[in-house]
């Protein structure tokens, strides 16, 4: 999968409470969740995000609550890929399971600035900062995770397995 978009850059420990505050967890409707994505961290995010945009963040992205509403909200807001130095464990699984592309690449995070245009070849793990011309290679997924991604998520993998 290939993506290209403008970067919204954030710091470390972006928790799932700021990704989607619990006051909106009385629904699991993706469109409704998207309207409040990241509002406690960056009140202007929902206004400025465009389809295909990319989130770049430092360590421990998605820490805290297990709410799958977080990757759902990010994806429904139009973001297809999150690049971070590291991801919190539950968010990592939830992203894989819900089809939000994630990449771990500390070098890219250090180099990419807010507003840069970045292209991503998720299969090859290559991240290119089109604004600066720099290229980075992300940590490859373990084969098992790749299988889930290629199956189109965990549910599809089970459906295929159960025939």
């Amino acid at each position, binding site marked *: 999968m290939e993506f290209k978009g403008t970067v919204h850059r954030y710091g470390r*420990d972006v*928790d799932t*409470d*700021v990704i989607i*505050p*619990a*006051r909106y*967890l*009385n*629904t*699991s409707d993706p469109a409704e969740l998207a309207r409040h994505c990241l*509002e*406690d*961290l960056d009140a202007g995010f929902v206004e400025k995000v465009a389809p295909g945009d990319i989130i770049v963040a430092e*360590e*421990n992205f998605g*820490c*805290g*609550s*297990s*709410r*799958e*509403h977080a*990757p759902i909200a990010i994806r429904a807001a139009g973001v297809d890929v999150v690049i971070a130095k*590291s991801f*919190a*464990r*539950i968010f990592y*699984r*939830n992203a894989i*399971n*819900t089809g939000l592309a994630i990449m771990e690449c500390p070098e890219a995070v250090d180099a990419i600035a807010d507003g840069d245009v970045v292209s991503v070849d998720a299969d090859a793990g290559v991240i290119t900062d089109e604004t600066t011309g720099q290229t980075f290679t992300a940590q490859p997924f*373990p084969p*098992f995770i790749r299988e889930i991604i290629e199956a189109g*998520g*965990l*549910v599809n993998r*089970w*459906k295929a397995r*159960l025939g």
Partner: protein
Amino acid sequence: MARPMTMAEKILAAHAGLDEVEPGQLIECDLDLVLANDVTAPIAIKTVREITDRVFDPERVVLVPDHYVPNKDIKSAEQAKIVRDFAREQGVTHYYEVGCMGVEHALLPEQGVVGAGDLVIGADSHTCTYGALGAFTTGVGSTDAGVGMATGKAWFKVPETIKFVIDGKLAPGVTGKDVILHIIGMIGVDGALYQAMEFTGSAIEALPMDERLSISNMAIEAGGKAGLIPVDDVTRAYMDGRVERPYTAYYSDEDAEFARVIEIDAADIVPTVAFPHLPSNTRPVAEARDVRIDQAVIGSCTNGRLDDMRQAAAVLRGRKVHPDVRCIVIPATQQVYRQCMEEGLMDVFLDANCAVSTPTCGPCLGGYMGILAAGERAIATTNRNFVGRMGDPTSEVYLSSPAVAAASAVLGHIGLPDDLEPVACAADAE
């Protein structure tokens, strides 16, 4: 002879049908229980329906509406109804309706639903609480939980384990909550990322079960996948006659490999408070006395058990909450609520001008039942103090033990029980 293993590795190996596993290995395991609540279950139920008509075992699916029940609004009512209807349709035996329910991670150990050696996933990050019983239990998202409900299976990457050895004697007034806040302050909110935590040592062995559950509960706040405590006489005394299935105690081999061994002198741990906006932002309570508060919340899956209520009541007995503070007490289960009444703790809370609520997660995650206005500050016995966690994004949450929260409620600022004026005629108040 299998390789030496940690207790986390042994539980995972047993559930994968393997003699041994090692960190990094990807395995598929049979699950003892799969849990979800009223916020996470609706998505999990959709997942179940995509895969199958029936859950893998209606006795091993646990559904606890606790976050926004009693229903806080129409949308919450719809979510709770989805869970209720599904539980009825599938014949889920461990469904807990309002009136029987409690905050899930207080309820399951209390009701004997989970026991030592179990492997449990729950669509709630604090599922790690049951590690205090010697079980490997971990939080997942709704899709993992839904697949677990449909198939009885989940995949795991075997984690490395960090072993904490806390030896010595905790000072009076230092609780399990202070122990875990101290640890998180030490290693950071991703200090145990992708790793299991194992808590050992004479200070842990001396703690009652309720305080051990508080420790394991917050393993996730250090990024931990599980927070295990080896089974001992305290665990057995708690589980025997309570746990509904046979349980197995697993212990780390003496020569097991740990990612790290962190030794802590219990005497170094003091009453601790986590400042906004991370649980790792810890300071001694003694250095936080200038923080004025508007609200105190005593409850949650971290500190809503009977010992927590007793510790709060011991401070509040014969005293009044400061006129500038709202103090909200939430016994975490119906049983804790009833025990509070039987022991006279309800009278203590009411006499002190506390509001006492039926069990709910409510304010902990900023749902309802104690939301903060802009700029307001709360001290809470809960587990997270992220931006906007309990209300307006400019509000602040400080995390502490029940005794410190209760003392702060009386003082009007963060402080210790020792800071309070002695209660006049304490003998009469008894």
